[in-house]
């Protein structure tokens, strides 16, 4: 299956308006099998605590090893300035880009509980606005 995904990604996303988004298994094992090797960029979603950042760092390293042109963290569930500082410090320490910061937002788990998409649940939610900002700044 990994080889099929790899090939689909290889032939997709070629037109100027085309965007392919691969939501992938979190496991480093999956990434190391090269599923993502034809991607232009990787976003690694992390939460502002050490274990999550450390896992994210390892995933980002795998993306870099695959030769992906751009690998960056997205900091999710950010509650306050302390969280911002923790992520920023970690990223600087390890030479990682932080592509976006998404606030902790009750709208996300609420959408999940309701079984609907975040965008349909609450289009004006701060988390949705932050993802919109990420779309504008990161996706070319």
């Amino acid at each position, binding site marked *: 299956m990994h080889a*099929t995904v790899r090939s689909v990604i290889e032939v997709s996303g070629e037109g100027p308006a085309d965007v392919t988004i691969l939501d992938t298994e979190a496991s480093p094992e999956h990434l190391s099998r090269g599923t993502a090797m034809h991607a232009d*960029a990787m976003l690694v979603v992390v*939460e502002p605590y050490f274990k999550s950042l450390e896992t994210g760092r390892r995933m980002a390293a795998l993306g870099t090893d695959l030769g992906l042109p751009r690998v960056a963290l997205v900091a999710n569930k950010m509650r306050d300035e302390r969280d911002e500082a923790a992520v920023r410090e970690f990223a600087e320490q390890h030479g990682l880009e932080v592509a976006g910061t998404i606030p902790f937002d009750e709208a996300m788990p609420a959408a999940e509980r309701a079984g609907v998409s975040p965008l349909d649940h609450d289009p004006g939610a701060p988390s949705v606005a932050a993802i919109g900002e990420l779309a504008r700044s990161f996706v070319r």
Partner: protein
Amino acid sequence: MKLVVAGKGGSGKTSISGTLARLLARSGRRVLAIDADSNPNLSLTLGIPADRFNSVPTLPRDLLQRTPDGARLSKSLDEIRSSHSLDGPDGVSLLVMAHPQHAGTG
């Protein structure tokens, strides 16, 4: 652009992937979302109801043909889209690699 979204379970990876896909589609992009998780739930964060998701055919294994020059797809991407993708809100196309009961076979 081809973008991989990775992250630990529970990190919010799939909510972000789905919302990103919808917002990009709204801004005029032609978005193909691929759920390659063994516990696929991208459809939900894209806004595709569960009953529609359960009826989507996953990609067949013989889609990839081995040739002397390496592996290649036996169909074009447009063919794959029309036979195997689900159309979601805002025009996002979703490809699902495996349903949960098939997880671990590929």
